[in-house]
């Protein structure tokens, strides 16, 4: 089997998740060919072939240019599976490439089994096992699912390519997140309000527990998006990555993007009315209760 791995650079650096691609190729025992728009100063290490376009010329990401660049390499290499990381880059590009190749596409693959790929659905409560009927398959893989730590020292054979440079969208610039008002990364205790808290008026209940414990208030994304709590409190892929001694998740379902930001916490307590909430998979203790009753009672007893 041959895999075409689509590597990623951001702001002139190879992204570490690129090694997840090497991870899945190793796990499948497949030949590796990689394509990326990047920089010679920071090349990925793996045993295979790398088609490298110069990101100074064609940009780190432009859907039209990168789609064509990948299709050109597919034509040369004829891979069985084209693998992207499930990232803002991968999930944007994969459907474009799949459509052009008339290939089956699976999103956010977490595992494989007997020639099928496994993907989560319904907020990770369920799993689908899918088998491609087309001779090429396009997949995006969940970041971390195929993490590959044992970094190889091998160097790929590099072939430089010059993709065409026409596009119907114009990349203007990157915009950094506003300076963070709050550094949650140093907190020992974080008590996070999720959407299950219900409304802005209930946030003081969660804040009171955080204060009582001498910790900080965290928030899941909908809580920040709805302005119940300032964005600087958001934990997750698009928020902060934290690792406190104690993390208390109040009314948080446990979506993968939230888990990505807090799963390294030493001890995790989740309070949720839903016994099957995916947060239960990583919590040390799941308290099945209504946060609005449980949290004030806990605060009082401490």
């Amino acid at each position, binding site marked *: 089997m041959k895999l075409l791995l689509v590597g990623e650079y951001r702001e002139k650096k190879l992204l570490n998740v690129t090694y997840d691609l090497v991870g899945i190729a190793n796990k499948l025992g497949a030949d590796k060919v990689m394509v990326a728009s990047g920089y010679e100063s920071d090349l990925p290490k793996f045993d295979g072939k790398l088609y490298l376009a110069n990101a100074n010329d064609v940009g780190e990401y432009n859907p039209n240019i990168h789609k064509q660049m990948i299709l050109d390499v597919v034509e040369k290499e004829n891979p069985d599976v084209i693998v992207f990381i499930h990232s803002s880059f991968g999930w944007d590009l994969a459907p474009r490439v799949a459509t*052009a190749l008339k290939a089956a596409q699976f999103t956010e693959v977490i595992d494989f089994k007997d020639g099928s790929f496994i993907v989560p659905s319904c907020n990770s409560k369920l799993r689908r096992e899918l088998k491609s009927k087309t001779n090429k398959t396009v997949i995006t893989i969940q970041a971390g699912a195929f993490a590959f730590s044992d970094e190889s020292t091998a160097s790929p054979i590099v072939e430089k390519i010059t993709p065409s440079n026409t596009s119907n969208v114009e990349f203007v610039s990157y915009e950094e997140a506003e300076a963070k008002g709050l550094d949650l990364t140093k907190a020992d205790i974080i008590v996070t309000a999720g959407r299950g808290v219900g409304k802005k008026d209930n946030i003081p209940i969660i804040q009171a527990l955080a204060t009582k414990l001498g910790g900080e208030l965290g928030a899941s994304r909908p809580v920040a*998006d709805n302005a119940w709590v300032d964005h600087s409190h958001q934990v997750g892929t698009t928020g902060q990555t934290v690792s406190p001694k*104690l993390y208390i998740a109040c009314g948080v379902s446990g979506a993968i993007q939230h888990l990505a930001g807090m799963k390294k916490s030493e001890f995790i307590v989740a309070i949720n009315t839903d016994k099957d909430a995916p947060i239960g998979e990583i919590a040390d203790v799941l308290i099945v209760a209504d946060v609005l009753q449980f949290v004030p009672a806990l605060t009082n007893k401490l």
Partner: protein
Amino acid sequence: MKVLVCIKQVPDMESKFKINANGTWFDENDLAYRINEYDEYAIEQAVQLKEQLNNVDITVLSVGPARVKEALKKALAMGCDDAVHIEDEQSSLKEPFQIANLIADFAKDKGFDIVFTGMQSQDRGSGQVGIILSELLNMSCVSTIAEFEYKDGITVKRELEGGLKSIVKVSTPVVLTCQLGLNTPRYPTLPNIMKAKKKELLTIASTELFAVDSSYETVNFYHPQKSGGSLILEGSVSELVDKLIVILKEKTSVL
């Protein structure tokens, strides 16, 4: 300007899901359905554009069984002008490529300038329909937009990882897929709900539109095995509080 908004109805994610008889999807009975969260942002953005420019006509479209009419009515009550129901009792078994082909066949000769969709659905999470649609219609496409501005053309901010965004300029016709937090979806007012009830929905059977074969099969659909790592505590609130305090004292250094 003509705007199309594509929406999907999804079950409440807090539901107890049961697997259907042939193990391909969940049993759709006895579930409460609502508009896919990401699609509510799509509807709201279209309505805000209409409020800004006045000359905007918004069509909202959904592929699905009879129940999706309810979602379409809500979108009309939020401010969309016309609704199209592509009726398909089997839509949940169709893959994104098949759904996008149905929509593309409907949309191809209608001259839409902007198509808004959600970036993904909450149940499948495939994130493909909007992008495939743009490819089929040969329109440009920016996915995962977290900000939208219409002023001498369209400028959007696309959300990347770690708080980074990229600013992108694009011209019409364009497909934009919407991310959480793009705006604050409005609640329809009672008079608008009443008005929406009276509006006609255009219903088209999916069999009348261009169909493509599926490119994959669902071999299995199941509840993952619990890792068994966590301690699940149930009971009265006061018991639970006492138990948790004991655990925190034993297992952590914070109390």
